[in-house]
């Protein structure tokens, strides 16, 4: 502890990751990753393809089992749990009630055979909502927040554009009021004008709901807009972390300098 702790700010991190490692045989997915994520904080994980950022996100969101390391999470009730010490059902409950995971391809995060309203509503039912009228009202309200017209509530996501599908996936994840959201390239594969609208939306939602988020992206402009803090990965290892504008404006590591200097100016 340094003298800087004179005024205490938030007591405990929401998520505390130590020595997280994922090996595929002898190949390194990610190695020795440490993260502390604080309430209301958005952490951007940047790096090129193969840098290990998606492996890391998959381990954090319990889609993959890490080879080593610990992931401690502070629940809404204040209790701190270790993700992989929980039983499978307990981990599923946690994911459903306190976490959201927005996948890069909305088709992986949506149910394509049911309506938009059902995609949002079934998440509410999974946490115990039973009144049909309330669920539908809440679903329509969330479609509005992600700028989808209420009259599309009965349409299936297959009838939506890519940008609309991604907004629907976000509504499906945020309707349960999660404390922690993971996003994997949330604007990847979308047209630039659609990206801008989505970024604006994510930025507003994250700020207004006060949630903590980890956003994986290879797009440094997206990272600058959304993240408070950045973690730069290469070859499965974290090479630099820091305040977002500091990492982008005064990068310290050779790889970060290369990434930043490789962006085309418009």
């Amino acid at each position, binding site marked *: 502890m340094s003298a*800087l702790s004179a005024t205490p700010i938030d007591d405990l991190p929401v998520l505390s990751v130590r020595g997280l490692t994922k090996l595929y045989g002898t190949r390194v997915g990610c190695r020795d990753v440490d993260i502390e994520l604080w309430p209301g904080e958005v952490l951007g994980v940047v790096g090129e393809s193969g840098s290990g950022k998606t492996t890391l996100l998959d381990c954090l969101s319990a889609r993959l089992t890490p080879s080593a390391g610990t992931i401690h999470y502070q629940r809404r009730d204040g209790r701190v749990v270790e993700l992989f010490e929980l039983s499978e059902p307990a981990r599923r409950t946690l994911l459903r009630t306190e976490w959201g995971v927005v996948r890069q391809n909305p088709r992986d995060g949506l149910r394509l055979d049911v309506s938009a309203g059902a995609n949002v509503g079934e998440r509410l039912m999974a946490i115990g909502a039973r009144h049909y009228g309330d669920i539908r009202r809440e679903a329509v309200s969330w479609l509005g927040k992600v700028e989808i017209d209420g009259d599309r509530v009965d349409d299936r996501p297959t009838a939506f554009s890519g940008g609309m599908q991604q907004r629907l996936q976000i509504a499906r994840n945020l309707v349960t009021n999660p404390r922690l959201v993971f996003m994997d390239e949330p604007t990847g594969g979308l047209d630039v004008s659609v990206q801008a609208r989505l970024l604006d939306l994510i930025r507003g939602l994250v700020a207004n709901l006060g949630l903590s988020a980890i956003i994986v992206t290879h797009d440094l402009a997206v990272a600058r807009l959304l993240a408070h803090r950045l973690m730069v990965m290469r070859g499965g290892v974290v090479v630099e972390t*820091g305040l977002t*504008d*500091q990492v982008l404006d*005064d990068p310290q*590591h050779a790889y970060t300098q290369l990434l930043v200097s490789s962006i085309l100016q418009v």
Partner: protein
Amino acid sequence: MTDPETLVLRVSQLAKSFVLHNQGGVILPVFRDLDLDVAAGECVVLDGASGVGKSTLLRAIHGNYKTAAGQILLRHRGSMVDVAAAEPRRILELRRWTLGYVSQFLRVIPRIAAIDIVAEPMQLRGLDAATSLRRAADLLARLNLPERLWRLPPATFSGGEQQRINLARGFAVEYPMMLLDEPTAALDGANRAAVVDLIEETRARGAAILGIFHDRETREKVATRLFTMEGRLAA
């Protein structure tokens, strides 16, 4: 030495250089052994030739640039915090409550209206939407930004219009310490005068100001003291 009661910023033995790893590790030194105090109610203007590191110093104080050695002590809620050693979330807290910064250029965000850009620092402090928008409107009016532009995203605005939005945003909350990097460069005489008034008011309420003003007339009006930076260090 500045009276410790009124001291807001103390830069001591500060050194900054850039290491360009992809250009053979060449080192660009900017300054070293830099000492500077700024007290409440002062407006210290950085002086020195272009390339001497004036903007770099402001960026280091803002936590935007890392430094190689030294301290940047900033009074925050009664105690001195070292920006040079602070963790990111501490720097964000300083920026929210203590440290304002007006850069030369507005960073435009797609789809966000001018008035919302100005209101954002107030809303980050928890001020309600109506009050913050009212204050944002007052500032934009003071800086003579035509009202028809307030609800538009400023991407297509002129340099001077964008700079006034940046200024309104910077002066929207009462920071105890303000960093101003050529905030009047793109402005005409009437708008410069409006900025001079804002700076005078800010100083009068007891804030400390550190700035760069290339325009001599503005500099003479706002500066309570000049701080001359020496030429670029030899490698």
